[in-house]
Each structure stands twice: as C-alpha cells, then as structure tokens.
C-alpha cells in the first residue's frame, strides 16, 4: 500500500510580489496512505482549502511538490488533466455549482467529460446516485426543485461518478441540520468502506472528525500542527483548544475534571467512552492516568 498523496515542502503564496502577498501554506510535507479516511481540521484561514486544491492540481505550488500515487503532478504540465480525474474535489456548498436540466445529466457531466461511453456514464450515474441516497425516480427531476440537502447529495454524486481514487470533501455538512449532516457523512463513510476509496474530509467539527476519520491532520497558520491517529489527537485536547479549535463538549468536561484535581483520562471524545471512563473511575480501577 503506497501513499495516495504526498506533499514535499509545499508552499503557496497568494498575490506573490504584491503588497498584499499572503502565504497561505508554508513548507507542508506529509503523506496519506491509500484507503485511509483522513480528517483535516484547523481554524478558518489556516490554509485547509488552499492545501486541498493542490491535491488535484487546481493550484500550482509556489514551491515544493505534490505527488499523487508517487507521480509528481507538475512534472509535465500537459499531463495535469489526468490528475484532475484521479482526485475528486467536492467544494464547500457544491450545490451552487449544479447547472444541468436534470439530476441525471448533472451527475453524468464529469463522466461524459472523461470521454466514457453512454452506457458507462449511465452505469456510473446510477451507482453514484445510489451511494448518495438519491432514488432512481429523482434522476429525471430538475436539481433546482430539490431540497438543500438533496442538492448537495447530487453534487457529491457528480464527483463520485468520476470514480476518483481520492475523494476530497471540503465541509460537506456545512449548513445542514443535524439529520442532513448525519445522513451525508454516513453515506460518505459507507462509500469509503465499500469501495476502499481514500477520503479526505475537511471539517470544522471536531465531533464529526472524531466520529469518521481514522487519522487527523491539524493545521495552524498554514502549517501542520499535528498529524496522528484520531485517538492520539484527542489525547492532546488542551493543545487543540490552545490552537483555537473547539473540542467536543464531552472532552471539555474531562479537561475540567482534570483541572479540578481528578486524575481522570482526558482522551475522551465520544459519549459512550465518556460514560465508561466515569464508571471505571468511580470503581477506583483507574486512579492514575498521568
């Protein structure tokens, strides 16, 4: 199993040589293994979106390299189109980018552009719609008649239909209500599980990252602050707070208990594990955690 994506000293500067030149990301080196589910978190303006738009060559590094599946994507500029199909990027509020007359045509837009046969396009549209929980009878409808959550699923299906090896989603649940959020994230997770597609989930929600990601990349000021398994990241909850990230409410409770003088574990990020931790502590079986 190799690295699906790898960056070497990746930096990007907006408006270089201008008075308002801004370094968005600086000297980022990391790699993600194929088939992983990676969460990227960080406060607004930390460079998350800039980083991920490098993953399919939408942005060209000011310096450094981006390698997909071991190949330097900018080695030959003419070849960049190939990488656009390897990495599927779902932007924030992707429903604003729907434009076709029917859901079917909209989902099929990417595959058609890839030059696939009509049968193949059709098959992929159905597969993608199914993964995104869109019933077959919806395919003939106009995307603009749908609810916000449904539109978003159409947009995601449009990217999935291209069968990217790496699926990158920037805040796919933003603006949705709790039910819409859970539905979309569950669908992405099951798509990941069933197809083995590598997934990058950019999110502001620690709760969501905790629930879905195997590994977490924490960004701060255009660089990497932490990169580890989800559990290890949450064991450093206080540092997350110091960076200006919110941690799950339940984690805060345990940080407080610690402050109050209880020697209780603080790597708690789910309610279930929190309850177990409390009971274990109450029974005196876990007095020392420091």
């Amino acid at each position, binding site marked *: 199993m190799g690295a699906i994506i790898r960056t070497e000293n990746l930096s990007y500067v907006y408006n270089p040589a201008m008075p308002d030149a801004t370094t968005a990301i600086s000297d980022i080196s990391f790699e993600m293994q194929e088939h992983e589910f990676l969460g990227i978190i960080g*406060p*607004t*303006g930390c460079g998350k979106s800039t980083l991920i738009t490098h993953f399919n060559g939408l942005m060209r590094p000011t310096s450094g390299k981006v390698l997909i599946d071991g190949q330097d994507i900018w080695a030959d500029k003419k070849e960049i189109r190939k990488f656009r199909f390897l990495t599927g990027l779902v932007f924030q*509020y992707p429903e604003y980018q729907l434009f076709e007359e029917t859901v079917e045509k909209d989902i099929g837009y990417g595959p058609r552009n890839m030059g696939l046969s009509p049968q193949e396009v059709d098959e992929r549209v159905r597969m993608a719609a199914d993964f995104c929980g869109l019933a077959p009878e919806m395919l003939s409808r106009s995307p603009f008649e749908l*609810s*916000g*959550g449904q539109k978003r699923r159409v947009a995601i299906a449009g990217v999935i239909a291209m069968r990217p090896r790496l699926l990158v989603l920037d805040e796919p649940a*933003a*603006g*949705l*209500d*709790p*039910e*819409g959020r859970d539905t979309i994230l569950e669908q992405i997770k099951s798509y990941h599980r069933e197809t083995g597609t590598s997934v990058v989930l950019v999110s*502001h*929600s*620690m*709760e969501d990252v905790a629930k879905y990601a195997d590994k977490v990349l924490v960004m701060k000021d255009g660089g990497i602050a932490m990169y580890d398994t989800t559990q290890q990241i949450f064991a450093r909850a206080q540092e997350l707070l110091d960076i*200006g*990230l*919110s941690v*799950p*409410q*339940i984690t*805060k*409770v*345990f940080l*407080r*208990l610690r402050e*109050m003088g*209880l020697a*209780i574990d603080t790597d708690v990020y789910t*309610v*279930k594990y*929190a*309850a177990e931790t*409390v*009971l274990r*502590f*109450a029974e*005196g079986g876990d007095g020392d955690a420091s």
Partner: protein
Amino acid sequence: MSDVIKADEIAFRYSEEAPFAVDGVSLAVERGEFLVILGANGCGKSTLAKHFNAILLPTRGTVWVEAMQTSEEAHLYDIRQKVGMVFQNPDNQIVATVVEEDVAFALENLGVPPDEMRKRIDEAMEATDIYKYRERQPHKLSGGQKQRVAVAGVLAMNPDVLVLDEATAMLDPRGRGKIMRTVRRLNQERGITVVHITHYMEEAAMADRVVVMEEGRIAFTGSPKEVFSRAEELRRLHLDIPQTAELCEALTALGFTMPKGVITDEECAQLLFERLTQKQGGGR
C-alpha cells in the same frame, strides 16, 4: 416586561397550493430577551422569523411590532428600523467594496449626518470586533467575518431587535462562537432583544428561552434546561442534544444516576466531581 414582537395565530404559505410553512403560531417576544427558535430544516422557523420585520406578511393572523401591525404599509419603514435582520448567507448581504462602507450603507440611505454616521459605524464595528478589517475588501474576509460585517451594518441602525435568521449556519465553530458572544453581549450590555433562529443546540443553550418548532407549529418551549431535559422528543425532531445531557442519560442507564437537562460542561464537570469524590473519599 412589554412585548416587542407579538405574533397572534399566524399562518403562512408560499403559494395557494403549497402547504402552510407556518401553521398557527402565537408567540410573544419580550423586550430585552434572548430568544432562540430551534428546529430542523423545513420546520418553518425561518419563515416565522421573516414575519418579524414584515419581509413576509401572514396569510392569516397578525404580527405586531410594538403597536404597529406589520401588514400596514405605512409602518414598514419604522418596523424595518426597529427590527434588523441578518441572514444565512454572508455572500448575499454585502453590498460595498470596503468593509466600513458596507456597514455605512444603510445609514447613508437614511441620510444620517456624517459625524453621527462615523460615530455609529465605528461603534458598530468595535462592538462586532471588525474594526481592524474596516479598510479591507469584504470578499476577502472569512464567512464569520463577513457575518459580523452584516451584524455591524444592522447594529449601526440602532435597532431594538436583532433577528438572526440562521446567521450562523454557514460558519465554522469559531465564527459561530464569535457571533454568538457578540450578540449575547449586545443583548446584555445594550438590552437589544435577540431572536436567533438556528438548528445548533449549543447556541440554544445560551438563550433565556427556547422555542422548538415542528412542521410549522411550536412543539414546546421553555428554558434551555427544560427543553434539553426532553431528550427523546428532541431526537424525534432530529435535533441534537448536548453531549453532557447524553452522558448523564447514558450514566443513568448504567445505574450511575445523574440529573436531566445538564447542558453546560461546567455544570456537568461539577456534578461529576461531587459524585466521584464522594464515592472515593466517602464524602467530604
């Protein structure tokens, strides 16, 4: 306390054929209160909010802003000045190319004298913590910053009531937290009445009173503590409940009885601390 907004048995539908989006709601907003209207998508909470400054007029029933009926066009101008509204999408409410000009936009239209205007926009920008961005281009700000620009624009008009129509829905947690703290402060320090429409339960936890909506009607209402004690009903309405309340529920189910309606991490930690130290030390 007097009511600043009062809705009396109102119903609204977007067209003759459409179902009622708001279907028989009576609600009084008290002057100075921080009211949250909570509900899942499609429950009618935004439609209701748009009645509070006459963007929508009820198909049935009456809405009052102080002594003014929103259906009387002669009052429209006064109502809009009294009740300011901030919407969901930050990109749809910025009109100028420089932050401070955007904040000044409404005041310019009202013909406020320059000195007075300068003072009001500076104050509004200070209050929303965007003063440092005043010469920036709005489109280069983050969503949360843009939303604070929108709040500042409304604030500069000295409204009595601030209605936030899902104004935090498109923001990240930090942007949301900052807007909520800003609004809470305006509520406490200046007595501005706040009506905040949201589906985020942690924002509802900050309210004086929470109204939970379902299918165009009010499902129930109460203090945050009362509302979040009704975990089962909230789940049925596809709403989140605070993790602290969930933890207490889970512990109770496991035989470690904890109270209901624990909504803040402080309270939860305090309760757990007391329980756990009693257990270990045999009481203090």
